[in-house]
């Protein structure tokens, strides 16, 4: 049923968007790629799963993943970004964060094994739902979608309306001018990493709920796609990450519908090649400005 696949695509896309937002937020503020991001996202699934296995309610698992992955983001900022402030240190910071990501994967595999670990959601939670106009809606899926959309709306408000968001945009615009205006760039960088990583952690739990398991290779597959989505949407552009994520999710859903499952996994990369050829700065990107746009 095509409508089912559209719904699935939107849900998948919203999770892509949540991860891509973190990439683009960090890039917008620091002008650097955080390659540890996809593995922080991966870890989120395991953190949520472990808490759930300990008997914590679902919402608490989400909160714990939010906090722990946010703190891990602070650690990544400290070891891979704090020291490398010059514009010419972009590659240094990216290499360092790549290494942190690989270490995270290794530690996860040491602790949980390299096989996927299942998240034992009660059957009734996984299946409960309703049918509307021939489309089957599942409460769990709808809950995931609603929650991701709420988080994105929250991030939009944070960046565009609050003092912290204004400081984030000020640093993204020009760190030197922001400093002279009294903005503590270090604090802003930390906040940015916390928010980006916490959202990725939440996306990790939500994906584990959706698929029913957590796996250590998800960072390389799902996580790297989110990086491509940032490129498609425009580096540093929050709208771009959301639109790009939904677009890719829909494309994959439709590919499955038409029996092109083989294409689904590669669709995002092909899309990125074409988008970049036509618009090198991405759909919403601005070729000159380094900033964060909400």
């Amino acid at each position, binding site marked *: 049923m095509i409508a089912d696949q559209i719904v699935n695509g939107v849900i998948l896309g919203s999770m892509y968007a949540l991860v891509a937002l973190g990439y683009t937020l960090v890039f917008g503020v620091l002008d650097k790629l955080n390659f540890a991001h996809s593995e922080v996202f991966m870890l989120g699934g395991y953190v949520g799963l472990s808490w759930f296995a300990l008997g914590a309610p679902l919402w608490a698992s989400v909160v714990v993943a939010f906090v722990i992955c946010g703190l891990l983001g602070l650690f990544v900022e400290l070891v891979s970004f704090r020291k490398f402030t010059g514009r010419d240190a972009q590659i240094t910071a990216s290499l360092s964060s790549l290494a942190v990501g690989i270490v995270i994967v290794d530690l996860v595999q040491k602790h949980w094994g390299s096989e996927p670990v299942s998240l034992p959601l009660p059957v009734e939670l996984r299946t409960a739902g309703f049918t509307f106009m021939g489309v089957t809606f599942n409460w769990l899926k709808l809950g995931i979608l609603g929650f991701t959309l709420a988080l994105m709306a929250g991030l939009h408000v944070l960046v565009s309306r609050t*003092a912290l968001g204004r*400081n984030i*945009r*000020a640093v993204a*615009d020009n760190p*030197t001018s922001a*400093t*002279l205006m009294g903005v503590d760039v270090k604090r802003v960088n930390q906040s940015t990493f916390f928010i980006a990583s916490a959202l990725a952690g939440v996306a990790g739990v939500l994906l584990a709920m959706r698929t029913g398991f957590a796996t250590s290779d998800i960072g390389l597959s799902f996580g790297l796609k989110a990086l491509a989505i940032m490129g498609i949407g425009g580096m540093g552009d929050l709208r771009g990450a959301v639109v790009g994520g939904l677009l890719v999710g829909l494309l994959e859903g439709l590919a499955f519908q038409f029996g092109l499952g083989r294409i689904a996994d590669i669709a995002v990369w092909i899309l990125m090649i074409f988008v970049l050829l036509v618009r090198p700065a991405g759909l919403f990107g601005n070729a000159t400005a380094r*900033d964060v746009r909400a």
Partner: protein
Amino acid sequence: MSEPVLQAQDLAVSYGPVQALRGCSLHVGEREAVTVIGANGAGKTTLLRALSNMVPASSGAVRFRGAELGGRATHRLARDGMLHVPEGRGVLGTLSVLENLRLAYDVRPSARSFSVALDDVFACFPRLAERRQQKAGSMSGGEQQMLALSRAIVNQPDVLLIDEPSLGLSPRMVKEAYRILRLFKERGMAILLVEQNVRVALNFAHRAYVLRQGRIVMEGESAALLSDPEVMRHYLGGPVDSAGGEAVS
């Protein structure tokens, strides 16, 4: 005389092997407008950067309101009352006019509310009222300079460090910028102005320092320097040698 608001003692700065500033001492008193003049590359911008700790001083000390700064973080200085408007104005182009002003206000909230401070800004620069929602980067250079100066209106610093406010502006806009700087002076804001436009600067300030190749070579009342043929000779300066080269401006 009471203690100066801002005081530098033997301040020196090196960029690698290049000595950009070689032991500069100066002070800015309460309600005083002071200018540092000198040719391009004399070290004027470096001097302001050293005062607000954007570049580390290799030796010397800065005292602000009687306290040794000793490498206090630059962003804290804006909170403590030292506002530095850099060369190129330092306006945040992707933020709106209102957001730029709010940033300057929030960092040092005063007894008067933000909206009262805004009224003050718009009374000085009616043009900015029309453009309050506009992205600062989409405005003309002159309007951006108005915005840069307006930040001092809402921030109300104890001392304003301002770098080349006339740079790149039309003669009419230069006049406009100095009209506002005069207003600041009348209100009793201490100002340290760096300016290449010697005549404009000396007409504005109470006192002046002449910087040449990283050294203060002359100081005195503006009026006295204005009528001193030596000043013009120093300002024109001849060829700048390698030690005070372009890069350190």
